[in-house]
């Protein structure tokens, strides 16, 4: 029986979020909160491993109370249990402070049921860092395996896992001892529509909710803003491009004009060798 913990996050859908042009802040109301898309693949992979080897999938997240919704989404995908750690003390956490809080939660989950494998998405679409997964692995003192695009084998009896890690120009096959942590690429799987029984269970599901006080032996100076070595000193909107010159006329005229422009650019066309 494998016990797999998936780390997830609820995020604003950054694809459609609108900015307040006056304050340069995000209008969070303009974007629905969703389960971080990479994390859906992480949970799906955990569920597949559970189906393959037998086991239990727990999901854990740090966030405000509405993050329950993201946990329910994971239950739909097939997770068995959800844990939400929520506390004002976590506010303002950077990746280092976040990995600390998540690690404390995983340690508490492991007290009741030892963990064999931790799975995270490659990164979140709001933070875009990919740093929390490896951070959790270091804090738990288990090997981090990032950019996992395929799980070949998880062998609990013999205590190892074999995965494919995506590289810039291919992949590598890596073996690690268990427990370890995977952070997974999107291409690792496709998340299918959830079966109806899962959806029904998810709709009624209430996760375990923990505050800082529930996490036992915790160093509060390592949490939230206080525990974050980085600060955001300034935010500003990305430079607005001035806009290009629009080419006028019929399609043929437009294309001719464009070719003129391309020809004008010095060195754009090189005379083929031997034809100069």
């Amino acid at each position: 029986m494998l016990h797999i913990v998936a780390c997830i996050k609820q995020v604003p859908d950054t694809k459609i979020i609108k900015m307040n042009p006056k304050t340069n802040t995000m209008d969070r109301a303009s974007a629905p909160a969703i389960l971080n898309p990479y994390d859906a693949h992480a949970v799906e992979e955990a569920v597949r491993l559970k189906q393959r080897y037998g086991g239990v999938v727990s999901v854990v997240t740090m966030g405000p109370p509405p993050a329950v919704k993201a946990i329910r989404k994971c239950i739909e995908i097939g997770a068995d249990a959800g844990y939400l750690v929520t506390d004002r003390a976590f506010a303002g956490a950077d990746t280092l402070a976040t990995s600390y809080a998540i690690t404390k939660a995983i340690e508490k989950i492991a007290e009741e049921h030892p963990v064999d494998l931790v799975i995270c998405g490659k990164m979140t679409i709001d933070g875009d860092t990919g740093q929390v997964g490896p951070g959790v692995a270091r804090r738990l003192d288990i090997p981090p395996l990032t950019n996992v695009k395929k799980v070949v084998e998880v062998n609990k009896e013999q205590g190892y896992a074999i995965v494919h890690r995506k590289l810039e120009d291919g992949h590598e096959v890596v073996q690690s001892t268990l427990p370890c942590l995977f952070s997974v690429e999107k291409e690792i799987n496709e998340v299918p529509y959830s079966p109806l029984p899962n959806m029904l269970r998810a709709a009624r599901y209430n996760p375990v909710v923990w505050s800082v006080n529930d996490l036992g032996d915790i160093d509060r100076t390592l949490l939230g803003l206080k525990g974050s070595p980085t600060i955001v000193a300034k935010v500003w909107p990305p430079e607005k491009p001035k806009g290009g010159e629009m080419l006028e006329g019929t399609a043929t005229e437009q294309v001719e004009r464009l070719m003129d422009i391309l020809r004008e650019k010095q060195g754009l066309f090189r005379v083929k060798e031997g034809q100069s």
Partner: protein
Amino acid sequence: MNLEEYRGIWVYLEARDGQIAPVSLELLGAGRQMADKRGVPLAGLLIGDGVEELAQTAFPYGADQVYVYDQRIFADYRTESYMRAVIECVEKHKPEIILYGATTTGKDLASAVATDLQTGLTADTTMLDVNAETGLLEASRPAFGGNIMATILCKKHRPQMATVRPKVMKALEADQTRTGEVIKESIKLAEEDIRTKVLKIVRETREKVRLDEADVIVAGGKGLGSKEGFQLIHRFAESIGATVGASRDAVEAGWVDHAHQVGQTGVTVTPKIYFAIGISGAIQHLVGMRNSGLIIAINKDPNALIFQACHYGIVGDAFEIVPLLMKAFQKEPDREVTYG
């Protein structure tokens, strides 16, 4: 922590297939400027097996010193072995700043090192500066899917660390007269101490997509309408010897492989010419291509954001315009498009 003890700027030199990764040389360029501003040395940190002579490549690009760990145990990149070397070297020599390429390896290594050193790490930086007096690294990056830019500081911890996107910083012109000092390091590390093992490295044999190195990119988006429609992009790209790029929408629709994706969650590109065809110009896409030399946009919608970000725009149907363009290129019989 006594911040004053930390001095000097380091660049992690990523060795790949017997070469230093281009991004590492770019970072030496950025690091050189910052080191001069601060009046401190610029050092490279090189880890691998049989890499010692590669250290010499760093000097023409701006390094004053290179710390080298050349040991059998570093034959394959593994988080646990490499991070030990970095951490040991940091504890010994105390740099104020370390820059890593935001590559698979650089991000993996930096994340682990930052956690163990309990210091700040800024991901996927696209702008770097240092305050000459305070020594604070100002690392700026797109956040929230590129909707805002944020400048991140790490005030009370050292070293200050950042991963930096490839192709954003500029490498210096190599000055072959520049020399520097190779500092040999070694660490006691047994194979049994490392819990992972690389069994095999597979180089994908399929056609390599090297968007980041392409001179000309023809990129397509949602406007192509279907996988069949997207073939137009492949045909046009092939006819002018360009590389195929794509927006996130086109990739998510399954019309083209993720390897072609340009933008925040894809590749950052800086070709000489970028054709954006049927691409609306979401900010996530723009952050990945806006430094291209010449951006040409073709879109049916005159209000598409891409027209704000292009140099030249054509409002029109891609399926009408692109075939005309292909014909026009063919009429340049004695020439090939090279964009030198």
